[in-house]
């Protein structure tokens, strides 16, 4: 279920990836990588994809999944995996430590490092908001190619790594 495209196309074998993931967990003894939320992106996977809802009547795709189309109020949405590659639509750099809560990062004002945030347009389907892997203004340009990656962003109280999705500039 996790890796079936909307079109019915089967993704890579997630079982083997999952197995690799488990092995890696054992190597680090107790630490595990845990996604920040279920059903936000396919995980574990070495070609992760965001998960949205597509409404066939309006053509609208939401991210993350939703229960009603914001354009037509239709409730017949279908779970879809979104393209992994897109173009940077806009960006900024978070220059100060966000308040906690809601922010779950454990940085202090002294250890905080700015992070990039942007909107990435995935084909003609949807423009998604995301963290970016770079916080260098000189490396970001509207229209550039971006690729989905999964990154650790903090640890939970048990020392597990929490991971979320982000977009990285596609290396030429």
């Amino acid at each position, binding site marked *: 279920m996790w890796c079936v495209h909307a079109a019915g196309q089967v993704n890579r074998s997630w079982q083997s990836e999952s197995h690799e993931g488990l092995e890696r967990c054992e190597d680090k003894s107790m630490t595990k990588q845990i996604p*920040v*939320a279920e059903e*936000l992106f396919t995980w574990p996977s070495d070609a992760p994809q965001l998960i*949205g809802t597509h409404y066939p009547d309006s053509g*609208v*795709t*939401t*991210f*993350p999944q939703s229960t009603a189309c*914001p*354009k037509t109020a239709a409730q017949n949405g279908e779970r879809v995996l979104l393209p992994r590659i897109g173009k940077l*639509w*806009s*960006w*900024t*750099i*978070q*220059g*100060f430590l*966000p*308040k906690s*809560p*809601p*922010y*779950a*990062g454990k940085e202090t004002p002294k250890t905080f490092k700015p*992070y990039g*945030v*942007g*909107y990435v*347009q995935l084909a*003609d*389907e*949807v*423009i*998604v*908001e995301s*963290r970016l892997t770079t916080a260098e*203004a000189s490396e970001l340009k*509207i229209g550039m190619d971006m690729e989905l990656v999964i990154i650790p*962003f*903090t640890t939970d109280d048990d020392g597990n790594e*929490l991971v*979320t999705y982000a977009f990285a500039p596609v290396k030429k």
Partner: protein
Amino acid sequence: MAEDVAIIGIGMHPFGRHDNTGMEQGAYAARAALKDAGCDWSDVNYAFGGSSAAGNADTMVSALGLTGLPFINVANGCATGGSALISAYNAINAGAADVCMAIGFDKHPKGAFDPDPADFGLGKWYGDTGLMLTTQFFGMKIQRYMDQYGISASTLAKVAVKNFHNGSLNENAWRRKPMTEDEVLNALMLSNPLTQYMFCSPGEGGVALILARGDIAKKFQKKPVYLRSAVLRSRPFGSFEVFNSWLSPDRGNSPSVGAAAAAFKMAGMSPSEMDIAQVQDTESGAEIMHMAECGFCEDGEQEDLIQSGATNLDGRLPINTDGGCLANGEPVGASGLRQVYESALQLREDAGAHQVPKPIKTAFTHVYGAPGISACTVLSR
């Protein structure tokens, strides 16, 4: 018709940081507005008001007098004050009241807002991962706008310089120190391309307005100002708002476009007939984009307008004549009413040091806020 609603009293507690509670600041504004209108609290037969972080507005009756009047609390984010005003306007038009009060006040802690994702229909992950910041939205909206329409960083800075200048002339403003373009551009970068001094800060303050049926207005106030329209809109499909985890590639208009157009239509006037305007300047880019969204120029024309000083106090279309949110800060409940207070003050020629030099007859106000709401008014003498 629309001539039938007048603003007969205006009152404001100075914006900034104060020792008294938000509620006390509201009551102070209410007393000042009653005094300005030359009426008693017992003359007011309907009240609407709210704050986002300083308590229930109707509690204030214990400080103003337990007259038994109907007092409805309004909670509508950044449009709380605007929504109170629209409710009062509608109550008078509906014949439910002759004299109404619209009041907004607030008191926020220092620093950026820290909203709960659940209040905006978002998963906890959105806040966990550091996306729940209004500042990021403003940075990204103007970043794309600058790229599309050729707006320069210098123009972003000039908006802040203008608003701090106007604030320096306004005794009720919070930030009263003028700044240079270099100081604004070289300040700490909070959310690229926006620096610290391009953003307004959550603050404190209160504003009250007394409204009355137009035909009785002059019994109270020799210089009434008429509310020609008051309109609120939520977001249409395809708009770009605070706290959007996704956008449609099929782009649409901001709620400000619809609210402003409806306000002008209801008033029977056009943007070119406005002598001054107060538009939401949560940050300097917002003022630039809202100029076009409200119909005062085409996208991209702001670069020349602002560089040439057209929006300065002595310009062709003075904008944010009291210093806007940048110089006054943003006590959410009071912010929209501050714009109407300032418009009335200017139309009455009572603004003192920050009075625009040209004679004026008309004014426009616009607030915008999360999760995509806009309230606009058209006023005239």
